């Protein structure tokens, strides 16, 4: 089978605008497709970033005073002993925020006394010796808090924390060289790092997600506290229901503000990324579909307006296969032109996104895969009208209008 | 205006050159001719002689390079596209070899087309359409599509469309070329009937049999007219004379 490109090009020349318009569609679609796929990839990577904590069996109960007569310290210890005695509870603690939600505090830590030198921002959590177990975070170096180190809440007096635990990521941010264990950091009072734990996402999402410092104090400053509860597998909902009911009725001046499972916190944290990814996929898929219909339409038009010519070719001995090939190659030329323009466009958009949205530089493998995929489906779209062209009988050549 | 009152179509020294990148084709070379009002003239000549170019220029479908053209007493040589459209619409009726009916409009709507562009009121349009279809004997087929009619019938619809606007001049380009001889005769009868009602008819054909039915014959060869009768007002008569069918 021989392919003659020159007559093909001259055929394209007769409807240059049509071919140009389809190539333009291919170009825009390719550019958007490639960059959208790249963005979706980044978002999925973010979604798949491990939270570092047990989100499956853990929930938070937010207790708030309804009056300043609410004795927070007493209520905390009352709730903790209730929860720790409750069947199905694996561990429980009282804390000052909800991991993964942005609902919590952060601290500025300095490396030198008197709050001088480099400032490191970190999310902060405070809980007692059961906190690590409740979150499902493992101790990598040093030790956990001892019960006698835990400072209960005293109204009007924020407890100074002399010992802190940090995540591995924060340890590295604070002390890029050497071990952080045993070192002292400053923020209000000097604090000695007594333990380093595996990375987990703290309550603050703005700071680097894994930089968290943990204080051995019990919260209450803002008129309430968060009960963090981890249940045995499968018992979460039952325990949550029971605990909410009990604690809601336990305090004369306190109410259960709301409850939240960490699973739902995680879902919400990812929802923006997930939904943007879904919307991008939908629009891009529609775009590819429209682009294919464009190729389909152009080929159909070319076949329709060249019926006699095709018949003549057939009369002169072209096989059906030759006719199909002719139109597929014609489509491929348009696709190739579009892909070339689209690659340039894709790279330009990629650069722009890198500059303005802090997106990593476009991976060229994505561009290549995009070109292959789009030309593949494009050829598929040209195939049906090309086959119809092959079915044109040679006799149309001799028929008058 | 220096024209005799009776001239419907008067061309003087009309030249038309088609240019492509490689060649220049002189389709008309200083062609001059005159058709009087009410005449039935046949224009004949071999293929490539310039007949079609003449017809296109006469019908204001194309412009020309040099010379002047007066239609119904008005110089139409250098009119704008809009003005020429208007004259086509009001003064000229076309009949083509290929009928050129609009396939998805029914017969009524096909005859309606030129009247629409004249922005005529609906009752007036209806009256004209009906009477011209009556004249060609197709009043009963008003709601049919062209594809439902025979070739001869389609050409009669085209004639009805040409006369519906009550033009002063009918230009017919090989109107029987696609028809068998019986139908061809019917078409010629119709054209004669229209001519008898006072409309000037110019028939372009290469068929001498048809040409013979016209009052006068004009021969175009290589872009010039060979008939002295049409050049009677010109100072230099053409050297050759061919038999006129007067």
């Amino acid at each position, binding site marked *: 089978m021989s392919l003659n490109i020159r007559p093909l090009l001259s055929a394209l020349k007769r*409807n240059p*605008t*049509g071919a140009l*318009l*389809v190539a*333009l*569609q291919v170009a*825009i679609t390719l*550019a*958007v497709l490639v960059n959208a796929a790249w963005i979706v990839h980044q978002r999925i990577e973010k979604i798949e970033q491990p939270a570092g904590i047990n989100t499956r069996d853990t929930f938070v109960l937010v207790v*708030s*005073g*309804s*009056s*300043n007569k609410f004795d927070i310290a007493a209520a905390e210890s009352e709730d903790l002993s209730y929860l720790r005695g409750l069947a199905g509870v694996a561990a429980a603690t009282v804390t000052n925020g909800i991991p993964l939600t942005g609902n919590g505090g952060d601290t500025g830590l300095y490396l030198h006394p008197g*709050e*001088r030198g480099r400032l490191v921002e970190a999310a902060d959590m405070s809980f007692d010796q059961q906190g690590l177990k409740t979150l499902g975070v493992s101790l990598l170096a040093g030790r956990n808090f001892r019960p006698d180190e835990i400072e209960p809440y005293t109204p*009007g*007096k*924020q407890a100074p924390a002399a010992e802190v635990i940090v995540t591995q990521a924060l340890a590295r941010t604070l002390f890029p060289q050497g071990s952080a264990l045993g070192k002292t950091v400053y923020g*209000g009072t000097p604090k000695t790092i007594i333990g380093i734990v595996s990375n987990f996402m703290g309550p603050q999402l703005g700071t680097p997600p894994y930089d968290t410092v943990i204080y051995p104090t019990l919260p209450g400053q*803002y*008129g309430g506290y968060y009960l963090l509860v981890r249940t045995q597998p499968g018992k979460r909902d039952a325990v949550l229901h029971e605990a909410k009911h009990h604690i809601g009725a336990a305090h004369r001046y306190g109410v*259960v503000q*709301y409850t939240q499972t960490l699973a739902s916190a995680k*879902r*919400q944290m990812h*929802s*923006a990324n997930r*939904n943007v990814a*879904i*919307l*991008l996929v939908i*629009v891009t898929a*529609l*775009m590819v579909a*429209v*682009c294919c*219909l464009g190729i389909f*339409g*152009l080929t159909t038009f070319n076949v329709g307006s060249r019926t006699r010519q095709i018949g003549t070719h057939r009369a002169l001995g072209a096989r059906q296969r030759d006719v199909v090939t002719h139109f597929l190659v014609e489509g491929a030329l348009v696709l190739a032109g579009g892909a070339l323009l689209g690659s340039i466009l894709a790279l330009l958009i990629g650069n722009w996104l890198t500059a303005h949205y802090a997106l990593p530089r476009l991976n060229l493998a994505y561009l290549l895969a995009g070109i292959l995929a789009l030309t593949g489906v494009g050829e598929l779209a040209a195939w049906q009208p090309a086959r119809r062209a092959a079915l044109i009988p040679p006799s149309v050549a001799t028929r008058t209008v | 205006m220096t024209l005799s009152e009776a001239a419907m179509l008067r061309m003087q020294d009309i030249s038309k050159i088609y240019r492509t990148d490689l060649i220049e084709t002189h389709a008309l070379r200083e062609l001059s001719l005159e058709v009087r009002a009410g005449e039935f003239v046949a224009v004949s000549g071999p293929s490539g002689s310039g007949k*079609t170019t003449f017809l296109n220029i006469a*019908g204001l*479908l*194309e412009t020309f390079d040099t010379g002047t053209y007066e239609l119904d007493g008005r110089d139409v040589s250098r009119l704008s596209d*809009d003005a020429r*459209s208007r004259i*086509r*619409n*009001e003064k000229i009726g*076309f009949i*083509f070899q290929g009928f*050129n009916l609009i396939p*998805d409009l029914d017969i009524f709507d096909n005859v309606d*087309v*030129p009247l*629409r*562009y*004249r922005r005529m009121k609906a009752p007036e349009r209806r009256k004209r359409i009906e009477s011209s279809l009556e004249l060609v004997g197709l009043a009963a087929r008003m709601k049919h599509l062209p594809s439902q009619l025979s070739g001869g019938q389609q050409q009669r619809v085209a004639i009805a*469309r040409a006369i519906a606007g009550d033009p002063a001049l009918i230009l017919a380009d090989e109107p029987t070329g696609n028809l068998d001889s019986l139908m061809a005769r019917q078409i010629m009868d119709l054209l004669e009937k229209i001519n008898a009602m006072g409309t000037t008819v110019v028939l372009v054909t290469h068929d001498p049999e048809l040409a013979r039915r016209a009052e006068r014959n004009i021969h175009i060869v290589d872009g010039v007219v060979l008939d002295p009768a049409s050049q009677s007002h010109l100072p230099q008569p053409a050297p050759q004379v061919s038999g006129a069918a007067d």
Partner: protein
Amino acid sequence: MLGYYIRLALKSFRRTPGLTALMVGAIAFGIAACIVTLTVHHAMGRNPIWWKNNVLYAVTMDSWTPEHPYDPADPEHSPTMLTYRDATYLYGSDIPKRKALLAFVQGVLAGAPGQTAPLWAMTRATDSGFFHMFDVPFEYGGPWSAAADRGPKPVIVLSRRTNERLFGGRNSVGRTILWNNLRFRIVGVLNHWDPKPRYYDLSGGGTGNFGRPAPAFVPFKWGPMLHLFPNGHVSCWQAPGAKPIETYRQMLGSNCVWITMWVELPTAAQRERFLNFMNAYWAEQRTMGRFQRPRDNRLWKVSQWLKLHHIVSNDSRLLLRVAFAFLAVCLINTIGILLAKFLRGAPLAGVRRALGATRRQIFAQHLIEVTVLAVTGSCLGLALGAAGLAGVRALYAHSYSAYGALAHFDLIGIAWALALAAASTLIAGLYPAWRIGRVSPARYLKSQ
């Protein structure tokens, strides 16, 4: 002629139903995608109180530490909230026509007839000026008096929702309710009022910047009076060697910023006077050792305030751009099909020209055909857009995201659809219609 052209267009569609459906579909989907993203994008960037844009001003001062800017990622900008000390001083000025301080405090509502469990209600602590400045509508009663601000008097305003939950929507004005176990008199119940974005407080507290307004409102001074720590966003810094903040009183005297302040300054003269007032205060405080950063006393219009807070998200911009790229592809597709279709019909246009149609008439005929197509596509796009918005709402049903909160069909969406339809018609139709209008009348008349 219009009717005639429309009739011709319909005939033309009947001749090629597949291509017509393809073009209508392409326009519809393209427009729908744009409507969805534009509606949300527009709503996000909307100024809900545009009619007072030149009247209301948010007040900021750079009270942050000389060590580093408030937001290291955006060093240009000062804190968007005020310290208690600065806010109460500036509030003392009588230059503004009206003024209000805004914060969140915790609140528990109890004691309504038939109420079984106390209702936790994050409460907006503010001043009577708030209701006047932001044109807050009341269903029953009204704002509390200026005297109640000063007292403070135990008066409370409930949101419409809260009133429905506690009193079944009946007029509860004059009744007494327990707020944080204290007896408060209800003076007003809001009517439906839910501006999005929540422009008057963009600190992210409560249900977020696109969330519902607070369920209850009390005079600002009740926070300090009852030592209720702020329940919204609080940012603090401490001078080297300063003692940690332990008591509420210490917090009030600290550098923590947590109060949003609005003033109503209708005239340029008032604005200038108020700025001078701020500058004088700044200079005086500076001699006492505060305000060690460069002076940055500012008054923000609502529109500037929204821009400052980057209320329009990058994701929204991204989706908007993708949607327009999609519409572009749809329109290019349509141009291609129309061009092919029109040029295939060129011989018929030639016949019409021969019969006396002017170029303009041929152009008009084809442009009308495109218009009918685009209008049909746009109507369909409108319906698809409405469905798309419902889809987006479902997608975002469980998050506080603006994208879900704002995905509601509105007049602006419809206006956009009409504008896009008109633009699409022009873009998709002008060139093909122009091309066919230029067809030479003589070219196609001879049969091959």
